[in-house]
């Protein structure tokens, strides 16, 4: 297979690499370079300023808030989503009534639940964010009027307008969006675990909750780990940006009083609202560092002996 091999390789790789290089790699390299300049983005002139942007970062209160929120999301979002998803997937596969000749059984209609749970996954995050923005509306939204309908007239939170609540409202929407995907994913993983394992454990007197921690979770660990990485990147990425930018109050989101601002949103605001492109890339570099740290932690903590079955 040697004839014309290199010509073929070059022919097939040039266009994809050129597009990828120009629109992805080159801007990445540039952005790291720009973080050491005072470029405004509005004019082509700039000069090198060394670490000035980075020292400015240290005194920037909004940056610290954004960082704090982003770190909170990256820790809590995978935890909440994956825990809920594991719970539902386990219920779907093991929570059913005992059948003759079967140690464990899925609930009735489990495929129906899986179809419904997956709905948010196919919808655009922008549409979901808009929908919930209305649901959260304090005067006429679905949530507060729902509370009224069940007689809780005194409990009428401001939701997105309340600095203490707003971030959790955003968090809840992200959980709502992502749980279903992992229920389906984990469910597929659980279905491939041999039933004899459960039978043996149940014969030995284990209850189903023990079997979850001793059988299901260890055998599913690889999938959980990749789900963890995926959720963390989502919490630091475009989805989190979209939800905060669309749902929260203030010019381009992040309010009230910076209580919901996150790193990707702050990059966007600095670059495209405030005309401080160089400083925006500096915040972006901080975001890159957080992302890489997160990936390193997941790789390290997630490493376990691989179980073959």
């Amino acid at each position: 297979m040697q004839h014309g091999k290199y010509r073929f390789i070059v022919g097939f790789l040039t266009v994809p690499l050129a597009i990828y290089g120009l629109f992805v790699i080159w801007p990445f390299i540039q952005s790291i370079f720009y973080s050491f300049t005072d470029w405004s983005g509005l004019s082509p002139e700039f000069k090198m300023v060394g670490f000035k942007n980075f020292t400015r970062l240290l005194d920037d209160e909004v940056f610290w808030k954004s960082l704090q929120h982003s770190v909170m999301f990256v820790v809590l979002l995978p935890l909440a989503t994956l825990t809920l998803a594991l719970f539902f997937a386990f219920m779907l596969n093991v929570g059913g009534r005992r059948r003759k000749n079967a140690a464990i059984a899925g609930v009735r209609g489990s495929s129906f639940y899986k179809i419904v749970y997956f709905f948010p996954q196919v919808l655009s995050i922008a549409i979901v964010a808009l929908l919930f923005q209305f649901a959260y509306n304090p005067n006429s939204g679905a949530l507060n009027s729902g509370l009224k309908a069940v007689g809780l007239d005194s409990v009428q939170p401001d939701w997105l307008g309340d600095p203490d609540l707003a971030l959790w409202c955003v968090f809840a929407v992200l959980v709502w969006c992502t749980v279903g995907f992992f229920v389906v994913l984990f469910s597929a993983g659980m279905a491939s675990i041999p039933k004899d394992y459960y039978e043996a454990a149940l014969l030995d007197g284990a209850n189903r909750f023990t079997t979850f921690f001793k059988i299901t979770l260890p055998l599913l660990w690889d999938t959980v780990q990749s789900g963890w990485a995926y959720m963390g990147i989502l919490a630091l990425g475009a989805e989190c940006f979209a939800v905060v930018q669309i749902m929260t109050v203030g010019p381009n989101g992040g309010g009230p009083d910076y209580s919901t601002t996150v790193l990707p949103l702050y990059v966007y605001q600095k670059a495209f609202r405030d005309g401080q492109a160089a400083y925006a890339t500096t915040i972006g570099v901080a975001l890159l560092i957080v992302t890489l740290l997160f990936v390193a932690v997941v790789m390290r903590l997630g490493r376990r002996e691989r179980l073959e079955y």
Partner: protein
Amino acid sequence: MKTTETPPADTAEERPAVAKVDIAGGPSRKATEGRTLNVFSHGMLVLWAFMVVMPLLWAVMTSFKDDKSIFTSPWALPETLHFDNWSRAWTEAHMSDYFLNTVIVVGCSLLGTMLLGSMAAYVLARFEFPGNRFIYFLFIGGMSFPIILALVPLFYVMQNISLLNTLPGLILVYIAYSLPFTVFFMTAFFRTLPTSVAEAAFVDGASHTRTFFQVMLPMAKPGLISITIFNFLGQWNQYMLPTVLNTEQEDKVLTQGLVQLAVSQGYKGDWSGLFAGLVMAMLPVLAAYIVFQRQVVAGLTAGALK
């Protein structure tokens, strides 16, 4: 809403098995535990299903109401079905334009992504050459880096080559940012295919290019379908890239258009039209999902199961 009525096929298969339970159920301790768990798990599962479906149903319901009743009684059923909301959203609120733009952009970029992605993946999976690993990891690295970091300089790169705020520019950017996962997935897929067929084709005198298009691509069809669905949903639902790079009013795609509509409703007050727009954007995707449910789930979970 249509979407919640009947679960397809699978439950029917399960029914006979469930029917046996009544015979097996005895008064033993294990059976009681099983029953309690069953009630509990059903309760939780129904609750979550309810939480997923309610917001969607609420949106559909609201899209048929008039503006006044949206505010006065958000949970009441519409008194009369206001189909005019839908036609107003389609024409006056430019939903038709947004749809058209999205179809153009996603159509072109999907084709480009699949073609270029599988070309690159094939070469990386099947040919030894210096730099192979480097290029592979260059592509893979793009999956975990924060895109927003690149978007700041990208904005000015696009401006310099006059592609900012143009649909071709947006198409190229969609292709570029879909390549990492496509290359990752298709490389793994091409590695699983047998080498003998391609070698036979080559011995018979087919060129490398012809072998790829006429032998390897047809063999890779299952993988191509999965990744096409994955990219389609990703690009159709994309919000951040167009928000930054495509701000011209007449070029806006669906997600942007809806968000802009929501912002401008603050002044105009046509909430029912906005809800009609939201549901309009939501239903085709949900309907397609219900129909191609298996393929969609396989496509979206394919990467995570690797």
